[in-house]
């Protein structure tokens, strides 16, 4: 057995004796009173409300944190003026209180140490932990340059640390949200319309007449305002067309569910283009006015008839024609939704291009009920010196992917592997707000890279699996306990929201802005952190924006009038799309020049061999990736994932609902834990399905540990998008094991 220096620490941390939190249920009604009396009491109950925006997912809904007279957080309610939530949080936002109450939270800084030959963590003071980080960073900067210190981040803590890194001279920054999530669609839409889709997506769902979802599970992903608007669209009688091999929740709400054979979506979309053009039901006026490359597109798709697509997708030609006509009938109030987690088969930018082209043919970009022109409020930068210019960074690391527009996590990680040829050596890594062992595929590569590092820091609120690989762990307080940056996202109208602490940080946890400033000061970067409290930063910014912290504390959200003109195309004027020639690119010269297909093509992808099933994964509405599984409120709703198996497959293998099974993938990787079977007609016979984010290995997560399977550990085959470096993850196949493969081994 090889001993790895960065052996995952599984045992309980020394000095971290579990403090049994006395969380007896508080009965708001009291236990011995008459209800009517209690109702009266409850009515008179005084709550204080504090403005915040949610951090349980990336949608960042603005909300009010309600604290009682004893200063305890009782509930969180959406802010009615917020375009992200319209006053209604999703279950995760409502259950955000569990993130604060979770007794398994990281409580104090931890430093890796060895006791009796066993690696473990010991508790440390903030000064000791921060001094250690600063001295390691200094040493690496002196030897290799600041560029060799990398940051992988997500969410609000990430932005504070990004500022620290850039101030120190490192732009070696990446987040799984790009190459493991939405990157390909940004590239595909940017190539076509000259603009990213962005977040929240500028889909005008509330006014649409036809919503087309291709592998996008609105309702299982609780992207709040989209879920709400899809419901409005149902009320308005909109036609929903869902393309999904699984009967998703959205598929069950759809007029047309196209139960497509997995990995054939581009073929379907090419045949839709064929129908729109051959039948002359595309928006010719829009295309003539705004687009280039139509003749090339027409010629290209003339061969892709519905009959051709039938053999590939299993969708009947008449259904392909009927759905194309339904879209054309609704046009331009139609949305081919770009999706969000779109790293599937490695040709994902091309699939996004196909979606963008369909939207162009239907004239939906810039049209009511299609895509609106989004706008965000500009938040001025708090005064600080200019960042130094790094010699290399995320861009150089990802240079073999010419259209990568953000750091590619997997490429950054590879740079930590020992390799003399490597021009961009990474020696230290900070991970903030993201559990990379559950978001980045190819666990072996990740573990090898983390093992090769000189130093690794993890910042999180919870002892996520990734903390087990760190040299130093810093406990972040939750969003309910801190100030953060002003939320300014793209919407129909520019909108800002603030986050104000409702309570003091629990335990010895601290906000990420404070950590960034403390490390920064130790690195001689005090000028970049010219404030004692981050509150001063937002106070200054809000004043610059014509409001004040005092006002924002009362309203939480402020919506500004648009400055960029109409939300939709003004048919009387000529609109210049933000591309090189002001037109929509149906045919992409840019792709052609780079040696890629200028128009999307269908490529056949590998299919599962005998005895194997395609591993599909998705979301459950009450969980955000792996981060919420231990949240007491949300864990109560869903404690583990299950393996969806078609009844035909269940009959062949002899599986029953509730039966415990293990999975083995095509590379002989066996799941660490077991999963319970759910026999259901909702999944195809060639695939199995599970919700992503379960199977936590860290024993400090008392509710989540060992529950369900971590899909990411079974994703060892990655189909990289040659255009932008996205990691396609839907081409892994698993066999179902009914006998425990770990019977004689300790996990």
């Amino acid at each position, binding site marked *: 057995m090889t001993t790895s220096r960065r052996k995952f620490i599984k045992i309980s941390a020394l000095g971290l004796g579990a403090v049994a939190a006395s969380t007896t249920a508080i009965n708001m009604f009291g236990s011995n009173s008459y209800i009517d009396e209690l109702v009266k009491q409850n009515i008179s109950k005084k709550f204080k409300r504090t403005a915040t925006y949610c951090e349980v997912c990336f949608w960042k809904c603005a909300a009010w944190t309600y604290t009682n007279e004893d200063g305890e957080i009782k*509930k*969180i309610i959406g802010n009615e003026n917020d375009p992200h939530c319209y006053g209604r949080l999703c279950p995760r936002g409502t259950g955000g209180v569990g993130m604060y109450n979770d007794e398994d939270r990281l409580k104090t800084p931890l430093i890796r140490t060895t006791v009796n030959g066993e690696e473990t963590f010991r508790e440390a003071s903030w000064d000791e932990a921060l001094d250690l980080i600063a001295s390691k960073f200094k040493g690496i900067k002196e030897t290799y340059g600041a560029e060799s210190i990398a940051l992988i981040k997500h969410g609000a803590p990430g932005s504070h640390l990004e500022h620290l890194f850039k101030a120190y001279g490192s732009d070696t920054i990446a987040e799984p949200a790009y190459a493991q999530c939405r990157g390909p669609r940004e590239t595909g839409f940017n190539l076509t319309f000259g603009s990213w889709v962005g977040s929240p997506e500028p889909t005008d769902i509330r006014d649409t007449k036809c919503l087309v979802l291709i592998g996008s599970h609105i309702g299982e992903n609780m992207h709040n305002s989209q879920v709400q608007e899809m419901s409005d669209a149902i009320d308005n009688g909109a036609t929903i067309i869902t393309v999904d091999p699984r009967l998703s929740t959205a598929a069950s709400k759809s007029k047309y569910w196209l139960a497509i054979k997995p990995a054939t979506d581009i073929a379907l979309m090419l045949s839709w283009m064929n129908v729109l053009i051959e039948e002359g039901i595309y928006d010719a006026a829009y295309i003539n006015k705004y687009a280039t490359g139509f003749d090339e597109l027409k010629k290209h798709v003339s061969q892709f008839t519905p009959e051709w697509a039938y053999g590939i997708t299993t969708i009947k030609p008449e259904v392909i024609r009927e759905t194309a006509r339904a879209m054309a009938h609704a046009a331009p109030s139609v949305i081919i939704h770009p999706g969000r987690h779109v790293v599937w088969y490695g040709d994902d930018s091309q699939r996004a291009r196909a979606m963008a082209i369909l939207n162009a043919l239907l004239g939906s970009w810039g049209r009511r009920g299609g895509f609106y022109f989004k706008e965000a409020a500009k938040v001025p930068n708090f005064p600080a010196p200019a960042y130094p210019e790094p010699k290399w960074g995320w861009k150089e690391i990802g240079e073999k992917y010419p259209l990568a527009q953000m750091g590619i996590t997997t490429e950054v990680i590879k740079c930590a592997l020992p390799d003399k040829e490597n021009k961009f050596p990474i020696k230290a890594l900070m991970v903030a707000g993201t559990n990379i062992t559950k978001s980045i595929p190819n666990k072996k590569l990740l573990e090898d890279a983390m093992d090769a590092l000189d130093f690794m820091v993890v910042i999180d609120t919870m002892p996520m699996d990734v903390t087990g690989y760190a040299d130093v762990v810093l406990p972040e307080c939750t969003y309910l306990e801190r100030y953060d940056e002003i939320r300014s996202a793209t919407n129909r109208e520019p909108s800002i929201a603030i986050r104000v602490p409702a309570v003091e940080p629990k335990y010895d946890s601290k906000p990420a802005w404070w950590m960034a400033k403390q490390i920064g000061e130790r690195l001689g970067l005090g000028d970049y952190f010219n404030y004692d409290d981050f509150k001063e930063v937002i106070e200054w910014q809000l004043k610059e924006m014509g409001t004040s912290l005092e006002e924002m504390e009362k309203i939480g959200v402020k919506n500004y009038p648009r400055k960029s003109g109409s939300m939709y195309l003004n048919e009387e004027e000529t609109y210049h799309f933000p591309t090189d020639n002001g037109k929509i690119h149906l045919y992409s010269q840019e792709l052609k020049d780079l040696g890629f297909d200028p128009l999307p093509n269908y490529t056949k992808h590998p299919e599962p061999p005998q005895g194997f099933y395609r591993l599909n994964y998705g979301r459950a509405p009450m969980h955000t990736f792996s981060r919420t599984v231990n949240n007491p409120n949300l864990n109560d709703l869903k404690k583990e994932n299950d393996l969806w198996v078609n009844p035909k497959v269940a009959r062949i293998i002899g599986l029953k609902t509730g039966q415990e099974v293990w999975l083995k993938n095509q590379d002989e990787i066996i799941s660490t834990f077991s999963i319970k079977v759910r026999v259901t007609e909702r999944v195809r016979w060639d695939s199995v399905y599970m919700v992503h984010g379960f199977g936590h290995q860290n024993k400090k997560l008392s509710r989540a540990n060992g529950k369900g399977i971590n899909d990411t550990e079974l994703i060892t085959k990655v189909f990289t998008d040659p255009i932008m470096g996205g990691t396609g993850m839907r081409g892994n196949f698993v066999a179902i094991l009914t006998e425990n493969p770990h019977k004689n081994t300790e996990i």
Partner: protein
Amino acid sequence: MRYAMVIDTLKCVGCSDCVVACQTENDVPIGFCRDWITETVNGSYPNLNLELKSERCNHCDNAPCVRCCPTGASHSVAGGIVLVTADECIGCGACIESCPYDARYQHPDGYVDKCTFCHHRLEKGQLPACVSVCPTKCMYFGDLDNPNSEVSQLLKNRKHKTLAPEAGTNPHVFYLI
């Protein structure tokens, strides 16, 4: 005044927000719930029908729980809301057995607990917590005695059902289908 809840199954995505909102609003202890989600799948791939719905106490006119309660702790109040007076409840569980909707649970403090239609919020002119939080706006609440109320209009114009009609309980949670 006759309170009723109407839930549109065509919009419900089964997210369970109603469950968490109820828990935080009413201090329902972790591990228990006053409302919950059910999923029903009919048909075979790919000709399938999926129904998701949020369930809870049906605040029946002919409530078996009220009839069988030996102490009178289970009772109906104005508006047809069925409540449990914790102080009078001896925790015998007869009501739990009698309820065809499985809507009641034994609270760790010894009494039986269930949905109150957020009686305390209604007093303040607010909607029940589950209705006010639902991201799909699939839940409606109001007075069935008022023919112009949203709930009356929905039941007048839309196809709907109740659960376990054979139990003869005259329930007041309706599902649009």
